[in-house]
């Protein structure tokens, strides 16, 4: 891995949720949305974050950017810990850390023109820029993301979903960030347009030397864009590894289950697959299982899994896995991809 620009160390985010409706006493429970997550991100690298809804992917992203306050842990950005910084100090960092959101329409103000939307971060971070400079920079940005600079005075409703996502990307990139967190950037788009946006992101990353955190539930897209992949379940890291290691030799039973669940657009391959879908459902994050949080759905679970929380251990190939039985589970190709059971 290239020299890390971001180090996340044992980051936790807790939410308080009210549970008492029956009494006047205020009762609440703690919900650990993100639980001691650690990883590093290199310059120019893409880290894919996958997991089911409610696993804490988005909260992790927001905690890194300081949009929710972590309850513990550190976020080291270029040597400086962002956790505990004042709002003003954070503001100055936010230029370097930008975000692209899931909902292409909802994340744009319908009453602002494209020029105003993409120009706003510039006016925020560079108040001394003249209107002409802002306009020129915005026009250049629009061109870069594949829109026409003539569209600068149009409003979001005049654009399609894919074009709105291009606008959102232009807004994130206009201040020259070094890290862009993309939270499900293509999941609201049609497949043909999805491919356009994925290509655009990869292209811009190369041109601008960006680091990306790419959060998605679509494992096929994540395989396409990521250098490394982090698998989360109920707020915890199950496995982090290079793309090939994750997809060709997944070590954690949850990673395997996820990969085996994805349908493959090829009827012959689909029939040949031994489909073994994961039973059960995601437990409540406010009342996670003891020991390994995945054990209630894990086909490999034994008694020890309920008693001991598996530590995230680094293996020889650099992969990190949190599973007590990882040595017994042969890190071979998952059934999903060819091998019949």
């Amino acid at each position, binding site marked *: 891995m290239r020299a890390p620009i971001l180090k996340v160390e044992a980051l936790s985010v807790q939410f308080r949720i009210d549970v008492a409706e029956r009494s006047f006493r205020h009762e609440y429970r703690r919900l650990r949305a993100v639980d001691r997550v650690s990883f590093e991100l290199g310059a120019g690298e893409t880290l894919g974050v996958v997991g089911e809804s409610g696993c804490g992917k988005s909260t992790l992203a927001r905690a890194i950017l300081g949009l929710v306050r972590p309850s513990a842990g550190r976020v080291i950005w270029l040597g400086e810990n962002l956790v505990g910084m004042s709002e003003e100090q954070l503001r100055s960092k936010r230029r370097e850390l930008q975000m692209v959101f899931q909902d292409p329409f909802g994340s744009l103000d319908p009453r602002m023109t494209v020029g105003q939307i993409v120009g706003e971060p510039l006016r925020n971070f560079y108040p001394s820029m003249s209107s002409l400079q802002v306009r020129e920079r915005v026009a250049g940005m629009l061109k870069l993301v594949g829109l026409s600079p003539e569209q600068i005075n149009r409003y979001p409703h005049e654009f399609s979903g894919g074009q709105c996502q291009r606008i959102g990307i232009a807004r994130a990139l206009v201040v020259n960030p070094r890290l862009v967190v993309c939270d499900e950037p293509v999941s609201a788009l049609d497949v043909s347009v999805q*491919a356009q946006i994925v290509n655009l992101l990869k292209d811009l990353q190369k041109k601008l030397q960006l680091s990306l955190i790419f959060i998605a539930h679509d494992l096929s897209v994540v395989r396409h864009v990521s250098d490394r992949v982090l698998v989360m379940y109920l707020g915890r890291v199950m496995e982090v590894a290079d793309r090939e290691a994750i997809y060709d030799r997944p070590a954690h039973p949850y990673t395997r289950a996820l990969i085996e669940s994805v349908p493959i657009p090829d009827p012959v391959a689909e029939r040949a697959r031994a489909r073994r879908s994961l039973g059960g459902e995601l437990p409540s994050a406010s009342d996670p299982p003891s020991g390994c949080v995945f054990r209630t759905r894990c086909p490999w679970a034994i008694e020890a899994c309920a008693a001991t929380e598996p530590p995230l251990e680094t293996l020889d190939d650099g992969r990190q896995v949190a599973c007590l039985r990882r040595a017994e589970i042969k890190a071979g190709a998952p059934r999903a991809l060819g091998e019949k059971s």
Partner: protein
Amino acid sequence: MALLEVRDLTVSFDTPDGVVHAVNGLSFDLDPGQTLGIVGESGSGKTQTAMAMMGLLSENGRATGSVKFRGQQLLGLSLGEMSRIRGSKISMIFQDPISSLNPYLSIGEQLIEVLTHHRNLKRREARTRATEMLLQVGISEPEQRMRQFSHQLSGGMCQRIMIAMGLLCQPDLLIADEPTTALDVTVQSQINSLMGELSEQSSTAILLITHDLGVVAGLCDKVLVMYAGEVMEMAPVDELFADPAHPYTLGLLNSVPRLDREHSGILRAIRGNPPDLVDLPPGCPFRDRCDFAFEACIEHPPLEAIGEERYKRCFLERRPVTEDHN
């Protein structure tokens, strides 16, 4: 005789911006026990096709053509006649399982109602039958679930309940509109295996509407590819994936990254955006985005048979092939 015979179905909507032509002359057959997938992007007319068949178009919508179910014309049926068919002979499940259930009634109440209404069962018999059905779709502790309300259950659980509800009267046809799109992959896989098992065990035909080619590959016997309200291609599932005849089908297949393939470089996206349904350009609706378009495409191509159960709407004589077809 085909279970469902759709001929020349058109659906249009009057809107302040003009008339939206959602479905334009759609024809297809569905045999008993068969699973037909309708794929296409948003706005291609997949959902409105199903809504028109079920008499569920919104007030500004109009359907013309013919939809025959076991020989009976469905278009133009009165509300009363239609509601005897809906839920009894044809049922439908929707994309958003939680809001498809009534939040004020317990799950049990909603299931029992289907049977007392359509099958004139006594409440007690209905309750037993509903409990059995919940077990069949893989819900544990069905008695407890029957007492619960939709907000207390997860999306995957609600979709199972919708499927159970859809199958209570052993319908001849189940229409599933993006049944797993809102669900996580692990739950999607559970629901898809459930639907696969059900179609094998019963003679229920399934009309599966989806944008996910992977789901189609796993579940369908035959596939209809829609674009701008028209059939672009129709084929048995293996042939469609192995040998796509329409450039749009090829474009769809190329634009999705495959989990089982190592990729590098760029995806072959389809350029541009789907056309405006208020102001459809003349000629082939896909022409502006098509890599194979030529002079002839200014005319509107007819749907022609190119093999057994294979149809395409394209002037191109040869197969569209890109040098690196996945």
